[in-house]
């Protein structure tokens, strides 16, 4: 009888406390582990973004007044051909440069910003300069795409003299009455805030 009382009053409550403590301990260890992991991954992600941002700023600070090939032939969506110099004669234009060789998700990620610029600055001040392998691809891209402003197709090799082309990434530049690429901006789809800041700055200073 005494033995049963002892079991009832001491051993089983102790066992219960032990189990509860074990459960708490396991839960604590697990949450700590995933928390540490989340922190380390978060740090890696942040440092990668910082690295990307730094490289972008360093790269872009070196890019100014890149001369474009004046007599390069471009084609609009109706197949009408122009010299590149005709597009940039007097008007200040923000150009979004894309190619079918670039990451198309990166290309598409910037189209909403291009639309914002077009809406705010007017269609004649915004332009898409594309390089599609065939005119058919260019036409279909423009027909079904989300961008309805001026667009021209140019042969990839006609811009190969610009060092930035070797990076194979989409970029923005400003052409201010000269056939030069100025104020080059290389967006990154991972950092939409950067593109938004660029848009705001372009609209503010236009």
């Amino acid at each position, binding site marked *: 009888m005494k033995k049963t009382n002892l079991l*009832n009053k001491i051993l089983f409550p102790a066992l219960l406390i032990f189990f509860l403590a074990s459960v708490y301990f396991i839960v604590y260890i697990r949450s700590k582990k995933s928390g540490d992991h989340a922190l380390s991954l978060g740090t890696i992600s942040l440092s990668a973004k910082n690295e990307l941002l730094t490289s972008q700023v360093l790269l872009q600070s070196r890019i100014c007044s890149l001369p474009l090939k004046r007599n390069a032939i471009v084609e609009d969506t109706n197949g009408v051909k122009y010299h590149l110099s005709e597009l940039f004669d007097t008007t200040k234009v923000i150009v979004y440069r894309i190619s079918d060789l670039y990451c198309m998700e990166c290309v598409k990620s910037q189209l909403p910003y291009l639309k914002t610029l077009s809406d705010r600055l007017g269609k004649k001040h915004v332009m898409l300069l594309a390089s599609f392998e065939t005119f058919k691809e260019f036409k279909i891209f423009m027909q079904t795409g989300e961008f309805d402003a001026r667009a021209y197709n140019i042969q990839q090799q006609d811009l190969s003299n610009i060092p930035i082309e070797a990076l194979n990434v989409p970029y923005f530049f400003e052409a201010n009455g000269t056939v030069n690429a100025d104020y080059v901006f290389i967006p990154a789809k991972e950092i939409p805030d950067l593109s938004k800041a660029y848009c705001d700055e372009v609209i503010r200073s236009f």
Partner: protein
Amino acid sequence: MKLGKWKSIASALFILCVFSCTTNELDKKAIELFPKGESPDYTTVLKIPADLDTLSFDYNQMLTDIRYVKLETKNNCLIGNINKILATRNGFVVADYYISNSIFFFDKTGRFINKVALKGSGRSIKSLKDIAYNYDNNTVYIYDNIGSAIYCYDENGTYLNRYPVKNIYFRRIAYLGDSLLLFYHPSLKERGGLNNYELCIGDVSGNIKYKAFERKQESGDGFDYNFSITTEGSDVYYSRRFSKYIYKIAKDSLAIFPGIRLDFPENKSVIDKVTESTTLPELKLLLSADNYNFDGEILSVNNVLYTGIYKKSMNMGVFYSEKNGRIAGGHLVSRLSINDTANAEYYSYPIASSNNEFISVMNPDVIVKSEQNFERSRKAMHIPVPHRERQLDAIMSTMRVDDNPVLVLYKIKPF
């Protein structure tokens, strides 16, 4: 009585404690893999010849049972660029994710049936990330990663269902069978867990049951974007970036094992030079140097395997006979004399396969211009008109520059 009560509570707690530690692991267990570096006896070894650069593939000699399917051209079904082709029971599904933003459905003869487009589809599809074919019930899955859903269509492009996939994103999907999908590169909003794996397996709603391949550090520069999940009938292959193993995912036992190993000429492949500590700039240097690379694409038809091998900007295909281990491939050529009849022209290596045929694509926008140039030279140099097989002649003589691509379906002769 009191003792019995305590015993019950203690037992219940014990069981609860044990299950709380194991249930989660059972649900999302990692699939058993062969130990790293081991090459089991049944791994097929595909030996890339040292003289691949000098080899040539005479497609008029090697292709057989060729048939052409001209995809119908209408204003509402213009294909910009083919990213993926699925051969379904009664036709073809063609994905153009980036130029026309559409998935096109054609019947066996190439007649346009329907399309799912970002613009004007009547549904709230926000992106076309990938497609997969469920051969068990002849339905097509379209994965919308921005809208976080998998849309289900029948093989005629008729909408059937939408499955929300909450809080988890993938880069590619493939159908494994038994209502299971293979997802490449899962990403969850919260860190850890499935984020650390390259593959996971689950149902169409994204309920994950298995995971595999611990993910290496993100390269973050498009280098980890993987195109190497290929579905071949009921087989699904997967190859990790810069790996010489092509893994086959067996749906029956849900095991992943290296089905094929590529052996490159000594010291001539990117893969053999890549280590765990290779940095991204080093990778870029390796890729731009004179090294062979392999992106993991694999097709299989009637015991003939096809894979693409890359070197700088040069793309070459390799066919491998599983019967005798022979290789055919290299630069594409056609060695026909004036009196011979061409069965194929403007051939390019396959990008898809059906159950018993390889599928290549002919692009009219390129071909028509080449034909015009060739015609001018032919007339100037008084070269006779080439003989073409009847169906090829019909295709070529009616081809216009704005036409949709032509699918070429064929087998490879024994070699």
